[in-house]
């Protein structure tokens, strides 16, 4: 039997590493599958990629990464396993009330429908706005009113500019149907 040299042991080390990395790659691909993208995201990503020039630097980095990962394969396997053990970060669906401009902290005071309509009086000397509560927004106001349920109360709200810049980019004032301090519906009559 031929004498085993140090080179032979290096070959064995690399061969075992290649097998281990391949097995880990197959495990990730076939067992730990990443969440499937929606058709919309897939199409969008394809469109973005189609518009971008081919990135040779990214390809070169990938090609260099493989021999490097193989050289220090025990470390690569360790990093891979620790990544697999990390809990997956998932997108948190916002609660329905988070979609409203008005949040709990923007509620100013409870108000009656009659008082609200008084606040929304619009008059125009040229007659270019309907003489109805909230003028051109009167239809939207009535659509808001019909959303009332028995245990809802009407509140006046103001979203200041500093808050609006973070969430909705515009300051606004309006009214909200509120139940247990949670906004159920909103009507914005003034925005900047």
């Amino acid at each position: 039997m031929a004498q085993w040299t140090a080179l032979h042991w290096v070959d064995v080390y690399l061969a075992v590493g290649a097998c281990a990395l391949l097995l880990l790659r197959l495990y990730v691909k076939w067992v730990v599958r990443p969440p499937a993208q929606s058709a919309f995201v897939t199409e969008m990503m394809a469109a973005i990629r189609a518009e971008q020039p081919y990135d040779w630097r990214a390809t070169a980095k990938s090609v260099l990464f493989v021999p490097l990962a193989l050289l220090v394969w025990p470390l690569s396997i360790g990093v891979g396993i620790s990544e697999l053990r990390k809990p997956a970060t998932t997108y948190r669906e916002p609660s329905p009330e988070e979609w409203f401009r008005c949040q709990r902290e923007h509620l100013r005071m409870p108000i009656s429908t009659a008082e609200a309509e008084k606040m929304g009086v619009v008059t125009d000397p040229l007659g270019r706005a309907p003489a109805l509560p909230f003028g051109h927004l009167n239809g939207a106001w009535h659509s808001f009113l019909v959303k009332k349920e028995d245990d809802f109360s009407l509140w006046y709200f103001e979203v200041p500019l500093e808050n609006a810049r973070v969430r909705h980019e515009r300051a606004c004032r309006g009214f909200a149907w509120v139940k247990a301090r949670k906004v159920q519906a909103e009507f914005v009559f003034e925005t900047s």
Partner: protein
Amino acid sequence: MTAQFSETLLLRGEKLSLCTEPLAPYLETGASRIRFDAETTACWRGYDGTWAIEGKRLYLVKLNGTSRTPAGWVERSLADLFPDYPDGVFAHWYTGELRCTKGKLLKYVHGGYASSYEQDLFIEIVRGEVVAERLVVNGVGAPDATEGYAVAASTSTSHDLNY
């Protein structure tokens, strides 16, 4: 984002380039079922409004826009959005500052309304009524600088958006 075409503001007989979108808050309230769609990347809002200040009030007096429907592109006007007010609409829903550019181009920025011009006229509006005005002088343009608001380039969106 591509630089956006301005709207127009008629003020004291002058035709100014308006770099604010006072109709946007109205459309966001859901008061109208009409939606505008962009035919070009230089006008993502999908419409071009002409506004006027008359008697210290802000009015929308003309509107040209487009909507994409299954049948194709449909042209929209002020009468489509406000059927009972085809000649002008009091913009009582708007509170904020209008920015109008004047003079020569100082620095072109190919995004939004970010280019700077010799002068900016800011008009403060509260519920559709003018409460203040201020003119800011930004500098003096080069002799060969472009006069008035301009957008350098745009792309048509109609061919790459499918229904």
